[in-house]
């Protein structure tokens, strides 16, 4: 096993079951993340990105209607097998989490400082004033000016960007070795977004923590990530280093994504991916993308393409790309 | 009529016991006094709270209903013509503030009663009050007033201390201006009134109790529970249901006497079918007083088959006009009056639960003769206002009769009498009632009232229903408390608590 390997997810499945149907939000998903690496997880809305993070943190899987299976080795230990008590010690401590929506992730009735200080209080049994000073330090670190007064304020007194940074401060207060950030900048303006991304990269450089960055903004990915995993309908369809992915996308879905992005200075008509993502509860066999795929052929209808290695560090789940490989 | 012979024998046994001094007696009543001014209060409820702070010239004799006893008066004479009353007072009476009680106070008090209006009509005949010396009062009347002594014995015709009245700006609503066996300590309305022993009471050796506490407990379950838990010594007025409950409670004795609170169906003789005597008689025949008594009063009241004066009273007329319900007769009378198929009529009641219950039973009973009763319940104050203005057809209500027959009749049945709400008028009755007022001879007086009562019953401006029991529950430690038909608590002065 690679010493650098921080997170190794294998065949992760997370389903939501109800009387009528089972939603396969995450279906047989595998990826790895190294120390000090920023891995971008991209994909359109509803493809299972958030569910993946929740599964890793075991925020789902406790109720009867939630089904969780697979392995997720974090620092060599399988998170999926851990008891709830053990997970409590890991969450917020070894794994920091930045939830999708910063606006509502802060408790409106406690001060920001209080919420950050709670982390060292819980995990390091820090005394109240010790915890408070850690909170102040964290706020300062994430670039909140006037942090001493700000720490005593409430969420509604913070702007969106400041809230997002407060959430980051909270996620980092436990000194995690893995940071999971679920669309941390979606709701923010570009200038603020730039500040936050900058901050995350700096932190990674300082602490050598691994970062799982979830987004659907390919621009963000291009700027900060080392490697990218593209997700479609609960599965990873392509995985590659950033340059490789942007310059030699293999999977038709990845290609479609890139083509549908407006680029400054280019007035070319955008080429959207036609059709809609499949329902995660009535999936038939074969490639999940085949209905929207311009290159689909017979095999796509019947056989589900596995994630194939195309080059060193580049994998794709498409019959076409694997065929090309074979024909080499 | 009272079935407590075993317990009554217990009472006679207690006469042998020697009274013990000291202790606090707690006594519960339905409601609190409205105010403490004896000359102003009209509600019988308030009397119980006030009467022990004051003395009156005369008083009702304990255990002998209808007999008048001396109180402040040591000795008196009444002139032959019944117009001059010469009263000699005890010379050792002191008000609670230490002032001596003199003839001047008596004169002042009677004048105050007249001025206050509420019981002024009892003193209408007074021509003059003279005070030849400190202990002598001479009251001269314009004409003889037969019940005059009874009036003077009314616990609310109390002798008050002029100094204190004036100190309170003429108002006694909150103050104690008396000379009675107990002195006011505190009155927290709706909570408790505390009275303490008057150490310089003019009757030597009385009272026995150190303290008396009055409590107002409106809820009957709370009240009956309290006495069973011995949180109280006396539960002054029991409902029929409470009497039943408490009769079997351990450590509690219930004493009952026939009371003077009589209830009736008022028939407004100026309204619709009720103008006809036959109709009123028919109603009187159609009502089953025994059943009513059973259903509403658990058979504890005394049905009135004649007039309002209850059996046992000196002036009981022994009338038995409507001895048994007779629906056939009632129907016949209705047919004679031109209502063979009956009619519809409204029956107003106030908030008194027994009367509300009675109304429902009567509705049921009158249906049998084709009279369709609609019950209209009103808030008490509205109800009494309507009665006063004669705005009703039928009603159920009651009067507290006190003692003298005049108190039972004059204002209620005399044409234009102050409380003649039924609009009843009968020349002959008027004449008899006027005569009764001035006749001093007991025997002759009884004849007059017997006759008047017979006429009234036949005219049926009211359907007399029953005279209530006055039932009081006491813990077995209470001795010497007289359960009086008028519900007076005057006997507290000689009540004592065994340990």
């Amino acid at each position: 096993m690679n010493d650098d390997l921080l997170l190794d997810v294998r065949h992760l499945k997370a389903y939501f079951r109800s009387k009528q149907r089972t939603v396969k939000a995450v279906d047989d998903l595998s990826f790895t993340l190294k120390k000090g690496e920023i891995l971008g997880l991209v994909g359109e809305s509803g493809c299972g990105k958030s569910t993946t993070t929740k599964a890793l943190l075991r925020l789902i899987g406790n109720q009867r209607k939630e089904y969780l299976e697979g392995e997720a080795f974090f620092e060599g230990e399988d998170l999926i097998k851990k008891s709830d008590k053990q997970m409590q010690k890991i969450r917020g401590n070894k794994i920091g989490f930045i939830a999708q929506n910063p606006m509502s992730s802060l408790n409106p009735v406690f001060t920001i400082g209080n919420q950050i200080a709670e982390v060292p209080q819980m995990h390091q049994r820090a005394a109240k004033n010790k915890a408070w000073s850690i909170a102040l330090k964290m706020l300062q670190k994430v670039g909140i000016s006037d942090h001493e007064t700000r720490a005593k304020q409430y969420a509604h007194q913070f702007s969106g960007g400041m809230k997002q940074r407060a959430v980051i401060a909270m996620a980092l207060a436990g000194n995690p070795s893995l940071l999971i950030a679920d669309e941390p900048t979606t709701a923010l303006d570009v200038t603020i977004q730039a500040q936050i991304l900058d901050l995350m990269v700096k932190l990674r450089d300082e602490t050598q923590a691994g970062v799982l960055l979830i987004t659907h903004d390919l621009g963000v990915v291009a700027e900060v990530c080392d490697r990218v995993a593209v997700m479609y309908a609960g599965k990873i369809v392509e995985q590659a280093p950033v340059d490789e992915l942007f310059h030699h996308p293999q999977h038709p879905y990845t290609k479609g994504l890139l083509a549908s992005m407006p680029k400054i200075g280019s007035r070319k008509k955008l080429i959207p991916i036609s059709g809609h993502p499949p329902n995660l509860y009535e999936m038939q066999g074969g490639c999940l993308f085949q209905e929207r795929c311009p290159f689909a052929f017979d095999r796509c209808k019947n056989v589900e393409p596995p994630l194939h290695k195309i080059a060193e560090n580049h994998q794709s789940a498409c019959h076409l790309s694997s065929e090309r490989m074979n024909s080499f | 009529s009272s079935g407590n012979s075993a317990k009554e024998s217990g009472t006679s046994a207690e006469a042998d016991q020697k009274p013990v001094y000291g202790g606090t007696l707690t006594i519960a009543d339905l409601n609190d006094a409205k105010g403490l001014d004896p000359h102003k209060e009209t509600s019988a409820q308030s009397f119980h709270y006030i009467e022990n702070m004051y003395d009156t010239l005369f008083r009702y004799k304990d255990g002998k209903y209808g007999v008048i006893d001396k109180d402040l008066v040591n000795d008196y004479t009444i002139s032959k013509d019944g117009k001059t009353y010469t009263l000699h007072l005890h010379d050792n009476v002191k008000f609670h503030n230490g002032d001596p009680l003199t003839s001047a106070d008596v004169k002042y008090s009677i004048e105050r009663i007249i001025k206050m209006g509420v019981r002024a009509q009892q003193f209408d005949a007074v021509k003059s009050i003279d005070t030849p010396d400190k202990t002598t009062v001479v009251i001269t009347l314009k004409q003889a007033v037969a019940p005059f002594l009874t009036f003077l014995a009314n616990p609310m015709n109390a002798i008050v201390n002029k100094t204190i009245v004036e100190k309170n700006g003429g108002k006694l609503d909150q103050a104690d201006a008396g000379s009675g066996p107990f002195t006011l300590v505190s009155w927290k309305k709706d909570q408790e009134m505390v009275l303490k022993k008057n150490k310089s009471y003019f009757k030597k050796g009385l009272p026995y109790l150190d303290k008396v506490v009055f409590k107002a407990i409106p809820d009957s379950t709370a009240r009956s529970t309290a006495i069973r838990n011995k949180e109280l010594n006396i539960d002054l007025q029991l409902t029929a249901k409470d009497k039943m409950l408490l009769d079997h409670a351990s450590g509690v004795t219930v004493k009952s006497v026939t009371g003077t609170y009589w209830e009736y169906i008022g028939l407004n003789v100026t309204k619709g079918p009720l103008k006809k005597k036959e109709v009123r008689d028919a109603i009187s025949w159609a009502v089953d007083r025994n059943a009513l008594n059973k259903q509403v009063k658990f058979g504890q009241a005394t049905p009135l088959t004649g007039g309002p004066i209850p059996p046992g009273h000196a002036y009981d007329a022994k009338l038995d006009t409507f001895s048994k319900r007779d629906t056939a007769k009632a129907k016949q009378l209705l047919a004679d009056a031109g209502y063979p198929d009956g009619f519809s009529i409204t029956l107003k009641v106030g908030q008194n639960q027994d009367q509300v219950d009675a109304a429902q039973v009567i509705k049921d009973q009158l249906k049998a003769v084709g009279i369709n009763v609609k019950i209209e319940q009103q808030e008490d104050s509205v109800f009494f206002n309507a009665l006063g203005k004669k705005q009703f057809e039928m009603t159920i209500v009651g009067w507290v009769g006190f003692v003298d027959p005049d108190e039972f009749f004059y204002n209620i049945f005399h044409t234009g009498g102050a409380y003649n709400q039924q609009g009843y008028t009968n020349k002959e009755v008027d004449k008899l009632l006027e005569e009764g007022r001035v006749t001093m001879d007991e025997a002759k007086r009884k004849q007059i009232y017997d006759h008047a009562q017979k006429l009234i019953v036949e005219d049926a401006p009211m359907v007399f229903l029953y005279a209530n029991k006055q039932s009081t529950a006491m813990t077995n430690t209470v001795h010497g408390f007289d359960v009086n038909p008028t519900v007076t608590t005057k006997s507290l002065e000689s009540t004592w608590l065994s340990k």
Partner: protein
Amino acid sequence: MLKVWNRYRHNLLAVSGLAFILLLIVIAIFARQIAPHNPYTMSTAARLTGPSSSHWFGTDQFGRDILSRIIYGSRISLQVGIIAVGFSFIVGTVMGVIAGYSGGWVDSLISRITDVLFALPDILLALVIMAILGPSLNNLMLAIGIVYTPIFSRIARGAVLNIRDSLYIEAAYSMGVKKIKILWHHILPNILSPLIVQVTLSFAFAILSEAALSFLGLGVSPDTPSWGIMLSSAKDWMELSWWTAVFPGIAITLAVFSFNSVGDGLRDVLDPRTGTGN
């Protein structure tokens, strides 16, 4: 409509609540046919007898059959509940909607009126109104209706304020929909949820207010079989004859329970967002 019913169908509690209310309505309509005895007939012999085969729920202090009185009593209680609450619901909602939607001095005026009515304890207000109007079923319903009006007005106003600024209202306005239409089609349906919850709660309190006013001697005519009157007069008999107090109590509880479950069910169903799925 069918869609709504289909969703409603799946809520067991709500369906049983509705079934019980329908049953009550049937009972109320056919009381005469259903009741084993005349609810007014008294019997000296059979007073305060416990439950037996001839009187399933026993008899009261006049020997009247309690079961029959409960059956007839459903008429009064349903009427009081439905009409009084209906009155306060309609009047209160109209007031609240006007206040919330028009704002400005109209809002201030209505809000102050609501505040005033609200600050008066309901029982005292009902008592005074009953004393003015005199006791009768209609007056009782009116008094209870007036007393509960400010609650609805307040809730409606709050709900209107909540959605008045929502985007779909602005969207409708921007497309030329007239204000009155917006009120009907957009605002009213969307403030219904909190109002329905309050309707079902008020239903309980209205039945109880009838009982409380009867307790204070200002209810409907005292011989009327009504659950409230039965309960308030039974209060004094609780110690001797538990059945006089227990059965009307159960009747009230069941009715309140049903209305609440129906209200909860309705609220879920009327909102197309919930009630699907499980």
